[in-house]
């Protein structure tokens, strides 16, 4: 009776595994950041205050370009995000020879002058290395798609929901994306290295819910600690040794009994 019960439980578990919906796990930031990698960025034209028209290809032909998207009326993350980016750029050495920055508004109501006003308020610059402006609605969507940007209206308000991201573009292709409302200097340095063509690996470190991790990363120091996963890795060899010794011990040839 007991074995029947166990069999029923086992069958139910198998049926659950076979037919059930797989448990959904939240997408990690790293996965989202990796989605746009290597995508080609369209050569859109940016309208800057003062009537200047700048094609992206004219910017990335000699230097990588860092692209961000924002809108002037944003009451949420846009201004703090751009301020954070500006501050981080200054912290790691300021805009120099390495790259340019282009901030494009995704609001059709924004004008080059309005975006310039915001840039001045936030102290973004200098102007030659940091272009702030708008683009046409027809060019905007392909640009957003290429860097993995999106937005949707928040009902009952004049605001929109959107991510905050910076995308490093080299030779017209996305080489790295950073997501988040603030830009940390450490991660920004990785972005700069990628801009120079140095491969910087990035990956989701297994979190506490992952069982038997081989390594644990201390987020504060970046130091690695050995985890229980390495013990699991030793298990097959240890079992092989133990089982072999057991087999040879149990089946060992016995001396013939004395006459």
């Amino acid at each position, binding site marked *: 009776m007991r074995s029947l019960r166990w069999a029923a439980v086992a069958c139910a*578990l*198998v049926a*659950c*595994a*076979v*037919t*059930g919906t*797989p*448990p*959904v*796990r939240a997408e990690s930031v790293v996965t989202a950041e990796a989605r746009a990698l290597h995508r080609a960025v369209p050569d859109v034209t940016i309208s800057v205050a003062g009537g200047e028209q700048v094609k992206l290809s004219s910017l990335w032909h000699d230097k990588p370009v860092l692209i961000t998207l924002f809108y002037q009326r944003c009451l949420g993350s846009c201004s703090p995000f751009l301020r954070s980016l500006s501050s981080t750029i200054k912290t790691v050495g300021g805009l120099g020879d390495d790259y340019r920055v282009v901030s494009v508004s995704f609001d059709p109501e924004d004008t080059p002058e309005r975006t310039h006003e915001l840039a001045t308020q936030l102290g973004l610059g200098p102007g030659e290395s940091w272009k702030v402006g708008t683009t046409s609605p027809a060019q905007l969507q392909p640009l957003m798609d290429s860097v993995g940007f999106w937005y949707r209206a928040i009902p009952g308000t004049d605001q929109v929901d959107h991510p905050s991201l910076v995308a490093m573009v080299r030779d017209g292709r996305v080489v790295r994306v950073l997501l988040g409302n603030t830009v940390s200097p450490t991660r920004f340095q990785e972005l700069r290295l990628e801009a120079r063509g140095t491969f910087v*690996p990035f*990956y989701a470190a*297994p979190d506490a*819910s*992952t*069982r*038997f*991790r*081989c*390594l644990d990363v201390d987020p504060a120091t970046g130091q*690695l600690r050995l*985890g229980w*996963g390495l013990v*699991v*890795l030793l*298990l*097959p*060899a240890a*079992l*092989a*040794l133990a*089982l*072999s*010794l057991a*087999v*040879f011990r*149990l*089946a*060992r*040839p016995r001396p013939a009994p004395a006459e």
Partner: protein
Amino acid sequence: MKHAQRNTLGWIAVTVVLFLVLLLVGMFLRAVQANQLDAAQGWFYPMMTLHGVGMAGLWWVGAMACASRVLARYVEPSEKVSSFAMLGTVAGVVLLLVSVFLGRFAAGWYFLYPLPLKGTWPRWSTVVFLASLTVLAVTWLVWVLDLLRAIAKKFPLTRALGWHYITGAEGPEVPPVVLITTVSLIAAIACLVSGAATVVFFVLELFTGTGSDPLLMKNLTFLFGHLLVNLSLYLAVGVIYDVLPTYTGRPWKANRVVAVAWNVVLWVVLFAYFHHLYMDFAQPPAFQYLGQVASYVSSIPSAVVTVFGAVALVYRAPVRWNLTVALFFLGLMGWGIGGIGAVIDSTIAVNSVLHNTLWVPAHFHTYMIEGLVLMVLGYFYHYCQEEAPIEEDLRLHKIATCLIVVGGYGFLAMFYLSGALGVPRRFAIYPANVAHGATLSKVALGFITLFLGGLLVYARELGRRWNKARQAIHA
């Protein structure tokens, strides 16, 4: 005795028939890559999975069957366990076929985490695939333990491993096949346990949704996969140590050099798989260096000792070059050539360039199709000819051998050339910048057809003897 003969003939039939089927599947893959089967492109990855898992498993059981039969000259493996192994293997293969043909499971032969859980195939096909692996791993583990038990009944562990040759102590003469098989079987336990552990982690995630550590999963998967293929080769090499002397009239005995070389294999082969993780930057660097050293040390001493021994054995010996001797000798050569390709590929600086190209399939196909496969086929022919002697037509043997060599190496050359030209592996269709991959696939198809021709001649020669041996059992 009849039980043993029936089992061996059963293994021979299963291995040869499945080989022909899986070879055709392999030809299908190259035909898709050559743009010859556009309508069937959707089947490329399920068939790649079947071809890979099928071939790796098939030649493992083929080598085990040979080793088990040769060991029976010295010890007593259980024939019931051998029958159980065949039943379990067939059950595992049926489950695999269901997951691939009905469920279109297509995670590749390495089924790397988390792909089996993320594919476009239905969830049940992943479950059936994992069930297939479980059945195979458990069955083979029982088989391995039984062979070890049989050896242990006659030889203490230190003797079976030939340590008395190393220390110079007094001890019984240990046939090299016993030494090499003991080494391989002990490592096989680690191999099969790691395969089972991988399945357990997959199943836990299926049931609970709690993720596994990708680094741990990849390590476990390659500890299983790399070892399985390596150990299949070693088992077949052990068989050659025992059978080749019957054709040369000279003994091939264990000695200190042989014992050292194969004991080194036991301690080092467990770490050689690290070379599969060179691309994994999360793997601690010390493991990467260890992987390179272990790859060299686990393959070079044993290969050098064996090839040197084989050459010395046939040098100026009155050898009758029938299918067995020719295939054994060519098999050892293929092992050596594939091994050199593998050693090159396991060098970190080279691997970073070649890892994702067709160079990798090139080297493992070399030591499989022109190494392990020839060794096992050579033994199968030897066994059937011993059981049911029929006058040999050496002209026919030469034709079969030539077709197998020319067809096989021509096929492999296209892989090597593609790899050197940067053609990526695992691509069903080649994009315009590597379109030459399709042309080389087409040429490869021609060569593999020659190989198939040689195999059919071999199958005819083997089949006549197999049939006669089968009739003798029933008489």
